[in-house]
């Protein structure tokens, strides 16, 4: 295994992480756009995504199925979990996020942190044996009977990972299309750009907010599902760090900017895995280094990569 192939492998791993980070970061960016809140509970929504899909897997009993039925159930589980968690996202937005978002910005920050803690603990307490690490079945392996991965020059590209990646990319593209082409998407952007102007144009802000939270949470749920497939183990507090990382990614990209969030997600992941690989003792420091990069970004590009540095209206 040459150093080159190690490098490639690491890049690939970085991409695998990046797609998950991005999907979380998009949520942060969307919410900030429409409601000017940093929803710190978002990381735990991501965790809910993983657990809900695990429940669905057991309920549908898809593990025993096979063939077309299996694939159908798989897709069903993904979509259902996205819908359910998306709904939950809207629910939390209605009862917590929106109400507090009217207060000072930082209030909402703490309120959502509290919400996150509540969700996390609820799972730990009320999910059977909630404090344990949960096994997440390797659903995709079944789709590729026989060989599990393609390997060239020692680089392992597992089919299931490739599939995860593919799904992620497709979803991101769909999102981009939705935001740019559909009426609702455009309104969301309008609100994100300038809430007052949009509301003057007679936009039903509440509807927009609901839709946004639904999309954001659904994406987080998907990320959670991917995370489960990728690591085959999920735990109630997996959302805490994911939330912080997603937030960082969103900020790097420029809050309120969806593409920025995606770029930020990949960037963060790349920095992490590269520093872990290239720097001695890097694995201990990788998060630190990633955060250092974040700081540098904020200092030299304060409004993020793609954040438009608008003139403040005096």
């Amino acid at each position, binding site marked *: 295994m040459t150093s080159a192939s190690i490098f490639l492998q690491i890049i690939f791993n970085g991409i695998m992480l990046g797609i998950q980070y991005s999907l979380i970061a998009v949520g942060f960016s969307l919410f900030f756009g429409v409601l000017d809140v940093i929803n710190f509970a978002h990381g735990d929504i991501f965790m809910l995504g993983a657990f809900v899909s695990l429940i669905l897997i057991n309920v549908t009993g898809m593990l025993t199925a096979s063939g077309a039925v299996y694939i159908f159930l798989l897709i069903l589980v993904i979509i259902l979990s996205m819908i359910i968690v998306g709904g939950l996202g809207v629910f939390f937005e209605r009862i917590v996020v929106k109400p507090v978002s009217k207060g000072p910005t930082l209030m909402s*920050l703490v309120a959502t*942190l509290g*919400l996150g803690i*509540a969700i996390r603990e609820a799972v730990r307490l009320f999910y059977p044996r909630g404090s344990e690490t949960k096994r997440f079945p390797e659903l995709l392996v079944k789709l590729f009977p026989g060989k599990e991965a393609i390997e060239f020059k020692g680089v392992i590209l597992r089919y299931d990972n490739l599939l995860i990646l593919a799904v992620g990319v497709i979803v991101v593209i769909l999102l981009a299309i939705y935001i740019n082409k559909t009426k609702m998407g455009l309104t969301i952007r309008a609100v994100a750009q300038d809430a007052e102007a949009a509301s003057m144009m007679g936009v039903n802000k509440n509807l927009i907010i609901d839709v946004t939270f639904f999309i954001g949470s659904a994406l987080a749920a998907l990320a959670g599902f991917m995370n489960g497939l990728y690591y085959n183990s999920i735990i109630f507090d997996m959302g805490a760090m994911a939330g*912080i990382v997603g937030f960082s990614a969103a900020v790097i990209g420029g809050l309120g900017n969806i593409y920025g969030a995606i770029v930020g997600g990949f960037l963060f992941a790349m920095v992490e895995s590269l520093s872990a690989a290239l720097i001695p003792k890097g694995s201990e420091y990788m998060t*630190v280094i990633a955060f250092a990069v974040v700081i540098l970004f904020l200092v*030299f590009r304060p409004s993020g990569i793609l954040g438009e540095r608008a003139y403040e209206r005096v």
Partner: protein
Amino acid sequence: MKKENRFLDYIKIILVEVVAFFLFLFFLKVESIWTVIVAILLVALIYFLSKIYKEKFQALLEPFSRYQNFAIGVLFILLVLYPIISPLMIVHSTYWTLILIQTGIYIMIALGLNFQLGSTGMMNLATAAFYGIGAYTAGLLALKLGWPALITIPLAGLAAAFAGLLLVIPIYKTKGHYLALVTLAFGFMLVLAADNIEVIGGPQGLKNIPPVNIFGYSFLNNIGNLHFYTNYYYLVLALLGITILVFARLFNSWVGLTSAYIRDDELAAKGCGINTNFRKLIVFVVGNFFMGVAGALYAHMIGFISPPNFQFAQSLLIVAIVIIGGMDNILGVIVAAILLVVFPEKLRVITEYRIFLYGILLVVTLILRPRGILPFGPRKYDSSILKFARKGGS
């Protein structure tokens, strides 16, 4: 108000405070989840009564605003008496003394943050880190150089303050959520650094930090039959008193006004001739100083510190204290600190659900009172200004 009411007012003040004090002691005494529930009901009851009998309630509170110093004095006396009274009533008195000391330390940190976040609107998610810098500085100076606490404590403050200067560029270039993230990242980095630098003990942290020792009097001595934590109780009480005085004075001065303007409308502040960035930097440094002092106190008292003591979760607790208490309101911060530090100790009875309820509590408080329990009131500067203004000038 007429003069002859004065004594009635004094009596009112004393009565209310003494009753509250003993209620609090009962609250600490009773090892049962019911205390929490009763306490909550009680607060709710008082709240509604204050709504129903508005003017009567006002009549009750009015003296407090008029004879503020007297009220504070009485409260201070009660707090001084606490360590002597509590052992007579409470089994775990030492434990509760420790908890109160820690509450005091948290209040000190929270006031530092309140100056940054509440007064000036600068989010700082690295409070625990600066608190840690203070603790480590004190610990190292005491262990490696054998310096006494009288020196290490202020030095710890300065160390934390100047560590804040590392963030000078971010502070100049970023604001709002971006600054929040910078500080958050900074906090993470410091904790991991501490974890990996063997010179300062790495994950083992620092052990056997000598206790505070003033002019040969070791704080490990028991005062009569009172436990040695009593020493620290009084030390923290004193320093906390100073801290509160300092911040109260800053609030009622140009500093407080300038900060408030930067918080509410930075552009307008610039338009009024304020060099906002420089002001913010100073505020940041001053706030961190008190966090550092608090850290030093903790280090000397417990005698053992390690990176886990200073993690993000701690910073969150501090932020929660400031925001739930009500921005830019010292009293609010104190109330919130008691709410978020002492209450959870009570909730230990239901260990499993404690953290869950903590989360719910945060959310509910902020939904019911989005501006915190006690939002800041008008800036009075000084009674003389108040009188002058009441006279309508000239």
